[in-house]
């Protein structure tokens, strides 16, 4: 019968490669940092091992969260090549995307949107999240995230137009 310590070490050795790979490939965390993150995830797991029912799910959730937090702490420098497909703008929204950064008044239009739309556009255009990150955050596929962004942009455009008319 294996001891608790041996069990912990076995869990570490079994799952460490997966966690480090997720940090590197999914979140593009540099190799050494990814390994540090994975190691720290395991250290934090030790004190709560008794309360975790789904070990693999918890570990994967923890490394995904840690990787995103890593970028928040260290600033983003992500190669967006992988996101290219999803970051291509819906042609019907192209005009708004071009003008949005230049128009601070667009913020006012955002305030008229639903909380979900506000959050989607804030994450995408003010915090610079990739489509993959938005998809992860809302638990949807990247393609659907792209649709959501486009839909919210169209609503913002309608609101922006309406505000302009009211003010003129």
């Amino acid at each position, binding site marked *: 019968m294996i001891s608790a*310590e041996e069990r912990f070490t076995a869990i570490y050795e079994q799952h460490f490669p*997966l966690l480090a790979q997720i940090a590197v*490939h999914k979140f593009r965390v540099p190799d050494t940092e990814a390994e540090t993150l994975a*190691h720290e995830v395991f250290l934090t797991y030790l004190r709560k091992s008794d309360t*975790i029912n789904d070990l693999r799910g918890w570990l994967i*959730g923890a490394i995904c969260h840690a*990787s995103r937090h890593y970028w928040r702490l260290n600033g983003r420098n992500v190669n967006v090549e992988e996101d290219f497909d999803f970051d291509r703008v819906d042609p019907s929204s192209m005009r708004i995307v071009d003008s949005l950064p230049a128009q601070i008044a667009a913020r006012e239009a955002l305030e008229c949107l639903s909380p979900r739309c506000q959050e989607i556009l804030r994450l995408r255009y003010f915090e610079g999240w990739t489509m993959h990150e938005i998809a992860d955050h809302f638990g949807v596929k990247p393609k659907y995230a792209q649709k959501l962004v486009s839909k919210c942009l169209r609503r913002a455009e309608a609101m922006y137009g309406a505000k302009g008319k009211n003010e003129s």
Partner: protein
Amino acid sequence: MTGEKKKMNVISFDRSKKIPDAARVAEFAATARKLLRERSAGDVVARMLKETPREEWAALAEREEIRNSGALERLSRDISSSLEKEPTDALAMSALATTIAETLPADDYPPIVTAQMRAHAWKDRAQALSYVGRDQEALEAIERAETLLQPFAAVGHDRAIVRLVKAIVLQHLKEWDASLAELKYCRQVFIEHHDDKRVLHCGLCEGLLLHRRGEYRKAHDVLESLLEVAQSDTNTLAAVHNNLALSLLELGDYTAANIHFSEAARHLNDAGRKIEAARAEMNTGLLFLRKGKPQHAMPHLTTAFNVFEHAQMPEEIGMCGALMMEANLARGYDDRARSVAAQVARQLENTRVSRQALEAITYAQNAIEAHDDAIAAVRHVHQYFQALLTDPAREFAVAR
């Protein structure tokens, strides 16, 4: 999607490329060994607390045998279980825990584990402070916990646990929107970590928030949606039933409210949480009283009174007794109200609250005797006993 594009979106995974570093495996194994070994300190701290008067608990922080993770884990569990029955004990234990955690040598554990231990001690302190109404201090404790975790990326789950407590404290301060924002953040993190139990807690807190904000229908809908997922967790299920009942009561559906109250009490009793079950019964009685249904209140109050009497809980005996007096007075049964007052006075003799308690009960008895707005008098007595829970030294003063 073409084959090439599909390939681009697949994460290539090669286990051989990420073998853990031997030094890290060794550090992890050593930490695991140390934490496992220290678990036995849990029994030591429990024994010390039992043998030491509460006023001297703070001095225990210097005892080497409990300056470790095992003792802190046990304190955390004991604080949690004392919150309901003995909030002042919980407060004293949380002060001990934060002192131990803050004075642990920095190199005893890996830095992330030390931060985790300290943050949880402060989170428990916040809960204990909040239970006795010191919500601003609770927020300061939360802030300390958040600061400790801030430098580490891998403590997302711990951070969310701390922020869940923050959401609850913010509710006490009626900061509804800020509390909802915290709950939303926490729910997302718990979903991501497959922590179903805490996802459920977030739902419960949201239901409670809507209820406190007076949005009873919305609260009911949120809570009702939790009933099915809560089936596997008796304690949470009891809380869902209890809160659903409270919302239904406000919506005027007394029959459904009664069913859910009964379910809550049944699940708490099944879980062996007799005191909480009695507290739920007492709250049910109180709510029926406030709704002008004293005849429905009495059975709940009597059940609760018997439990408090058996557990020798003087403040609760006083609170419940005052409610029973009110229920009898509301129905015109002044004799029965007097008899309850006499019974409460007997029960409270020679307890830690006896002198003040007797003054309060005598005040109620006199008001009943003189037909001098007796209901207002017994309500005042109820409030006094309730205040004793958080302020044991409080003197009784007659209502103005």
